[in-house]
């Protein structure tokens, strides 16, 4: 694959409302996952953008919550060499018998410890990247997208929080004929959604709870804006798949499922629902970030219950898929 030396002006094709999206725009991402097969059609590359306004109890990407760069510590990789302690300009680290401890008050998350750590026990979470460089990463798997009908998915965190970066990245991908998907919590401005619409082939739109009070309780925010945005995309005719993470004891009850079905019944353009059963795979990530996993003890839903929910939605005419 040859590097793109020129960068055509995408405004020609994607509307004049677009502005200020040069390839030098930078954003903060925490992962670029290739061979992602659960984030939209085909073989995809999923780009995870940092920062989110929700604080869902079950969040399985806790490293996506904060907008800034963080440092994770994985004790199982640590060989207790102490190099990170010496490298820290703020004296925030101390070597104990079996681990390195961080004084949060002193640490400014500069990442010097991660630079000094050869075992990747201290690991920088997040990096700043320009749209131009990100595009090069994305285009590496172009042959797989072409062959499989795949493309790129922007996820997070909440990708729309870094709107300028996201828009520029989407436009750059479209310019290269790469299929684009955006996975969103829906908590963003309607204007922003509208402006990325032309360059977004598919929205993967999370609807966690329809009841506002319960939504507030389990995610920390009201869902009013989220549901408004869902209605907006539906009325605008955008391709939308609704994604429902199935969290035991939180939103797997019939009342929530019925309410979701009722909500979607009024949105004729949305016919596809993906169910994402909860799994406890993120517990190590919480530990490494020094965070508490609020649902560490939760058990995944029984397969039968997931299938029953799928059947109940299918019966109402929706195309339902278990998993992404």
């Amino acid at each position: 694959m040859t590097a793109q030396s020129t960068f055509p002006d995408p405004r020609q094709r994607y509307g004049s409302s677009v502005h200020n999206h040069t390839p030098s725009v930078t954003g903060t991402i925490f992962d670029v996952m290739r061979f992602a097969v659960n984030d939209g059609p085909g073989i995809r590359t999923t780009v995870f953008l940092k920062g989110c306004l929700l604080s869902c109890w079950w969040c399985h990407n806790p490293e996506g919550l904060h907008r800034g760069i963080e440092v994770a510590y994985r004790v199982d990789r640590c060989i207790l060499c102490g190099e990170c302690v010496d490298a820290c300009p703020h004296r925030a680290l101390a070597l104990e018998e079996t681990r390195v401890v961080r004084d949060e008050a002193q640490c400014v998350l500069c990442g010097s410890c991660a630079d000094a750590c050869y075992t990747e026990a201290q690991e920088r979470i997040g990096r700043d990247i320009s749209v131009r460089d990100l595009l090069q990463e994305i285009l590496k798997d172009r042959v797989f997208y072409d062959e499989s009908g795949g493309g790129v998915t922007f996820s997070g965190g909440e990708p729309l929080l870094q709107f300028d970066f996201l828009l520029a990245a989407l436009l750059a991908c479209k310019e290269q004929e790469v299929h684009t998907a955006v996975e969103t919590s829906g908590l963003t401005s309607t204007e922003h959604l509208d402006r990325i619409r032309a360059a977004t082939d598919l929205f993967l739109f999370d609807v966690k709870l329809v009841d506002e009070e319960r939504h507030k309780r389990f995610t920390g925010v009201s869902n009013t804006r989220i549901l408004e945005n869902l209605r907006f995309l539906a009325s605008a005719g955008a391709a939308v798949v609704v994604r429902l993470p199935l969290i035991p004891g939180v939103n797997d009850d019939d009342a929530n499922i019925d309410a979701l079905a009722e909500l979607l019944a009024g949105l004729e353009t949305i016919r596809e629902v993906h169910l994402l059963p909860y799994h406890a795979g993120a517990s190590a990530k919480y530990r490494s970030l020094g965070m508490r996993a609020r649902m560490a003890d939760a058990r995944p839903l029984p397969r039968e219950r997931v299938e029953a929910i799928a059947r109940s939605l299918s019966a109402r005419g929706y195309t339902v898929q278990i998993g992404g």
Partner: protein
Amino acid sequence: MTERVRKLREVSCTTQPYISAERALLVTEAYRTMGFHSAPVMRALVFKYVMEHKTVCISPGELIVGERGPAPRATPTYPEICCHSLEDLTILDTRPKIPYAVSDEVRKHYTETIIPYWKGRTIREKIFAEMTPSWHDAYAAGIFTEFMEQRAPGHTVLDDKIYHRGMMDFIREIDLQLEHLDYYKDSLAYSKQEELRGMRIAAEAMIRFAERHALALDREASQCTNPQRHGELAHLAAICRRVPAHAPQTFHEALQAYWFMHLGVVTELNPWDSFNPGRLDQHLLPFYQAETAKGTLTDEHARELLECLWVKFNNQPAPPKVGVTAAESATYTDFANINSGGMRPDGSDGVNAVTYLVLDVIDDMRLVQPSSNIQLSRKNPDAFLKRALRIVRKGWGQPSIFNADVVVEEMLRQGKSIEDARCGGTSGCVETGAFGKESYILTGYLNFPKIFEVTLHNGVDPRSGKSIGLRTGDPRSFRSFGELLQAYRTQLRHFVDIKIRGNNVIERIYAQYVPTPFLSILIDDCIRNGRDYSDGGARYNTNYIQGVGIGTLADCFSAVRTHVFETHAVDMDELMRTMEQNFEGNERLHQLMLNRTPRYGNDDDRADDLMREGFEMFYEAVNGRPNTKQGVYRIQMLPTTCHVYFGSVTGATPDGRLSGVPVSEGISPVQGADRTGPTAVLRSAAKMDHARTGGTLLNQKFTPDLLAGEEGIEDLTRLVRSYFTMGGHHIQFNVIDAATLRAAQQHPEQHRDLIVRVAGYSDYFCDLGKTLQDEIIARTEHHSW
């Protein structure tokens, strides 16, 4: 699976392989009594003697007859090539992995007859006596291996000729050539006469061998009280009277004709890598179509006949090795590898009804032998690939998947005609060849990481302290990475020179002492040329050297360039001293090398370009150099299991690999170095120019959950198609989870059935050595969540 096949399979899978001294005794007797003849006639007379006297075996219920040994799983030996010592026999009998039982009677024959006659006369001893001291040094150091030190030149795959012509037709062709020899103008006329006479004797011997089966079947039939079996035996006798003397007329006859050819080739000598029918689905199609149209063949019967043939392959364990290797790597599999799909000679889609039957048989039989592959062309439907992937997903390593379009491209580059290329395919592990028309000889594996180690030590093998290479300079004095690369290039050429000199002698030894007149009948254009398969008689004659450890080499280059010449994190002296200590006492440097080195397999050009550098140097050193058969040497990138041996002789390397650990296998990344997922591995691997090789091997391990459901099959389909779009030659999948493998290691008795893809072939996991088992467990598991 029918009850008949189930019983035959049961016998084949549960009978302990054992050594039969029959062939060795017959060969010894023949050599003792035959008098003085030219080599081809002598070899033909030996072949005839064996085919006339070896035990004819008819097993209960079978529909394809003939065994290499006197009974299923009886394994003959080839003392004229290499003669087992009594110690060898003891090791074979007692080693825990891949044992071959050795009876007291066999030991007695070896003690009294076989060893006394052959000691000092074997091809193996001739070869070792002829090799130079520098060859012996490099060989002992583990720089390279030699395929032909105990097996005859191989990689012989059959085309469709035996389905149109019988031995009588070949005899007529031979006679015509004999008549037209020009003793006035052709200085080789007498040599050709002797070769052709040898072929004629061998052809007659094969007809006689089939007749002996017909007689034995008559006898069985006369004593058989079961009317159904009586009818079968009479039918089989009639088949053995028709084929291989005449061309087969039915599906059943076609299979039996092939099997007789197979037995002839593997009884005449013990060629690497066995022998196989090649494009069986295409060869059988005309018979299948004619008979299904007439209503004389059902799919069920066709499948049963194919399954009876499959059992036959599994009944023949590979001839065991002699010498030190008997205690080390071993396998019962003899690498017959059946091709399906691909293209027809006119370039159209070659997938047909028999292709799917063959895939059903592979799925049903689950045998390590024969191995199977699909030749996937862009012209083939996805349905074909998906049918194969549904078998792959079951996790026992078959079939492997080849890019038929690139295989053809490789052969066109080598100057083969497009029809010959399309009728070719791959055999052994991944090796490209023109079936029925080519002698393509694997000469041995070449240990890249070891050559790099010798380069770092200025020509000395640190393991022995011996100077085995050239003095290319102390790397501590190198001012640039380029100097190190140049030194490696010089050492590589030096060892390739030693290897090629050796092989140019070895192939003359085979041509002059043990030609193969029977095999020569079957390979174009040996009859027309009046020359032996081992003497340049074939239409195409290619010798291959197999490069091993390209992933480790690329990572070594990358580690030194990055940390010594770019970041200066370590100087060459400290790195050398730390490697000598096997990184002990400097874990931080070890971790630096492991984790901060751009590694091959992550779609990172910094490392992948160095892989290409290593590849180009190998290509330049080998490609196009003449062999002794008017052909040339070319390269392949495959290890079989040799990466384990090569690792065992190589000390710690700059990429953080510890002393003795296996080097990377095939063109796969170093075990555990690929951390960017399967698409990155495929992209990295595709940066090599596969079309300039005669085969590359890429191993990918998937856990079953990744491949669950139709989505899993679809994803894998697209991965394979993408890799092939990028020009990849071959990919194979181990679909297994590590927990299962660990459980099998702990409790082998509960997992005897577990077959894994090793490297170009499948084998029983519990039969593998611990190191190889560990490595298979360690191979990167790709999770997408």
